[in-house]
């Protein structure tokens, strides 16, 4: 048992380190972020430029075969690259969906023509992709998609017209293309009549509106489609096969979600509790505060340990599956609980936002509020528990009264 790389992993890590050192600036402080002071357009341009350099070095899609623009590497190497890149100041949150889930889906299900046309430019960062599954009435119940795709013309023309609304679409405001799930057959039961398409986000009839989150950020969008014309050559996979394709996409998401829930919030809590005084004594001497710090450590570091076990499985060539649902369940709750405890340490003054109270309060305040969102994004706590119960523990699925009913006959609301 050890935390060491294998010899091959270690030599890959050295290679990656050397390349990063030659191409990017190292991160010095924990709070350092790439692109402070850049406006949105400049940040995007920098991100695209960085992606092009990564692609030229083969690091854009490490596990992909070389003929597809990858490195022919292993998933473990992909993780090593990500760990090393995190030590450098490089743009982030631009290509996560594009390269993490959308492109692998195109690579898996696309025709040769589609792959030829789309993969290389996306790997180089020339095109950015998004994914459009969720809808106002299709959140946890994704099979409830109501966006309509109809053949243009009475006897089945060569184009489709898409009309409907998507929601929670990360990056739609800067994406060039997206994969979109739409209903093509209303006479089949809900998950059976869905088809996946590739949509040009600049096509007439596409309208993107940012959603202002509870945190005041706007990472997500609503996407409205009004008779957006999509040629049948941009259908991804077979007609009515969309559900299966989407499940594959979401599986891609699972492990990458796990990694973001680590961190050392407990150390922030300790620093703040040493600084804050209650009744003349540092808050760190309070037993309840100490218990909260311990709890935060058990959950956050525990999540990291589960992820390390998952990485060990990847290193052995296995693929971790639904176990990662436990990571998200624990990790997101730890953000919310730990963040709230830190805010609470400040008493009434703890209610003053970080810009007026002090920078050391920024992260806890962010986690306190964004933790509420983290428990929803990528599947709510309840959905994670269903996944664990059904996929790992083998318990029966939910009662579904809609399973064998033609979609057009389902109640909506």
């Amino acid at each position: 048992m050890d935390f060491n790389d294998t010899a091959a992993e270690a030599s890959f890590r050295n290679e990656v380190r050397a390349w990063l050192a030659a191409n990017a600036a190292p991160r010095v402080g924990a709070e350092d972020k790439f692109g402070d002071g850049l406006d949105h357009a400049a940040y995007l341009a920098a991100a695209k430029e960085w992606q092009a350099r990564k692609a030229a070095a083969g690091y854009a899609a490490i596990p992909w075969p070389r003929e597809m623009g990858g490195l022919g590497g292993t998933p473990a190497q992909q993780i090593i690259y990500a760990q090393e890149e995190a030590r450098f100041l490089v743009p982030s949150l631009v290509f996560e969906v594009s390269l993490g889930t959308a492109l692998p889906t195109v690579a898996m299900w696309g025709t040769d023509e589609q792959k030829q046309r789309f993969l290389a430019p996306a790997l180089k960062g020339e095109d950015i992709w998004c994914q459009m599954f969720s809808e106002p009435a299709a959140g946890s119940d994704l099979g409830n998609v109501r966006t309509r795709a109809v053949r243009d013309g009475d006897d089945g023309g060569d184009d489709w017209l898409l009309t409907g609304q998507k929601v929670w679409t990360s990056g739609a405001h800067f994406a060039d293309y997206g994969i979109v799930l739409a209903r093509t057959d209303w006479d089949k039961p809900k998950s059976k009549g869905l088809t996946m398409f590739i949509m040009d986000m600049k096509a007439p009839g596409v309208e993107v509106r940012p959603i202002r989150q509870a945190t005041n950020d706007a990472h997500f969008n609503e996407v409205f489609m009004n008779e957006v014309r999509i040629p049948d050559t941009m259908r991804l996979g077979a007609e009515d096969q969309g559900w299966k394709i989407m499940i594959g996409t979401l599986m891609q998401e699972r492990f990458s979600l796990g990694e973001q829930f680590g961190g050392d919030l407990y150390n922030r809590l300790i620093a703040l509790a040493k600084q804050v005084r209650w009744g003349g004594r540092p808050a760190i001497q309070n037993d309840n505060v100490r218990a909260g710090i311990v709890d935060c450590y058990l959950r956050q570091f525990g999540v990291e340990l589960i992820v390390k076990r998952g990485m060990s499985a990847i290193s052995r060539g296995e693929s971790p599956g639904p176990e990662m649902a436990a990571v998200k369940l624990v990790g997101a709750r730890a953000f919310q609980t730990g963040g709230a405890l830190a805010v609470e340490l400040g008493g009434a003054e703890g209610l003053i936002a970080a810009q007026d109270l002090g920078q050391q309060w920024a992260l806890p305040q962010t986690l306190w509020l964004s933790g509420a969102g983290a428990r929803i994004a990528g599947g709510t706590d309840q959905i994670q528990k269903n996944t664990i119960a059904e996929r790992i523990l083998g318990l029966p699925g939910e009662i579904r009264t809609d399973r064998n009913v033609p979609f057009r006959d389902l109640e909506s609301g």
Partner: protein
Amino acid sequence: MNFDFDEDQRRLQEEVRRMLTTHSTSAAVRRVLEGAATHDDGTWQQLAKLGALGVALPERHGGAGMGLLELCLIAEEAGRALAAVPLLSSIYMSAEALRLAADDAQQGEWLPRLASGQAIGTAMIAQDDQHALPGAPAKLDGTHLTAIFNAVPDGMVADVLVALAGDALVLVELAGKGVTRSAQTSLDPTRPLARIACDTAPVAVLAASGGAAIAERVTDGAAVLLAFEQVGGAERALYAARDFARERIAFGRPIGGFQAVKHQLAEMYTAVELARGHAYYGAWALATGAPELPRAAAAARLAATEAYTLCAEEGLHLHGGIGFTSDMDCHLHLRRARWLAQIIGNRFWWQERLARELIGEDA
């Protein structure tokens, strides 16, 4: 990265699991529960025969010379099987204390007997006061010990006791003069307790000084090993409840189909996975002698205590009324989970220990 046990270690675990499935049956555990035996000697001898008791002890003293990682997996299986055996007292505590503190002659005298299961040891090496019953602090006068210990695990069946007196670690032969002992009824009778009084009892001094540091190291090791027992027990209780929920029909379907039940089981699974992560980290720290051991051991103990308590309590609850009957094993888990949660210090003590480690304060 290989944050996991290797194939040979897993094979050993499988072998121990198969043996325990055959020998540490519910009936065998219940013989101890009913007071017909101090421990399940059949299972104990089988563990000795497999080399499991001496797995981490040196070969020249009758051990297998493997290591503590192997012992962790044996602990997990013992916990899963609810084994009514003195692993904690004899192996995790007294054999480890002897291995770390005793000279070669003392080790040669006792370790082969502990490894073969011929002798049973126990230990009282906590330094702090967390006693509900007044005992008497251990006082060492040369080679004679005077002390009163309560809640000594396996105290009636043990042949020797390792005790911490000030900064000295000593070994008391319990059949010798100056020692009187009496059974104390345990809330988990499968893991019995005793009161041991030493009145100027002759001792062998294992370490005249530096004993407290060794005791601390042994206690951390025991915390990791017990965490594996707790993970094993928790997982067994979880899957027993899962099996019941798949079979029990109410309101026209298996109760495991209702979210109130499913989500409870998912929470139990999640607690076990979290505990397993910390237990593995503790195993790594223990086996490599890493400076992270104190925090890793405390975290393993806390997470495992939380997991087993949850799985035992909610596992029984999910069985409904039948779960509260004596015939079902649910109460065996409930009792064992409580016993394991407190025997080497309760969660408040370990929480404070972990807090001090994280904050970087001295004790």
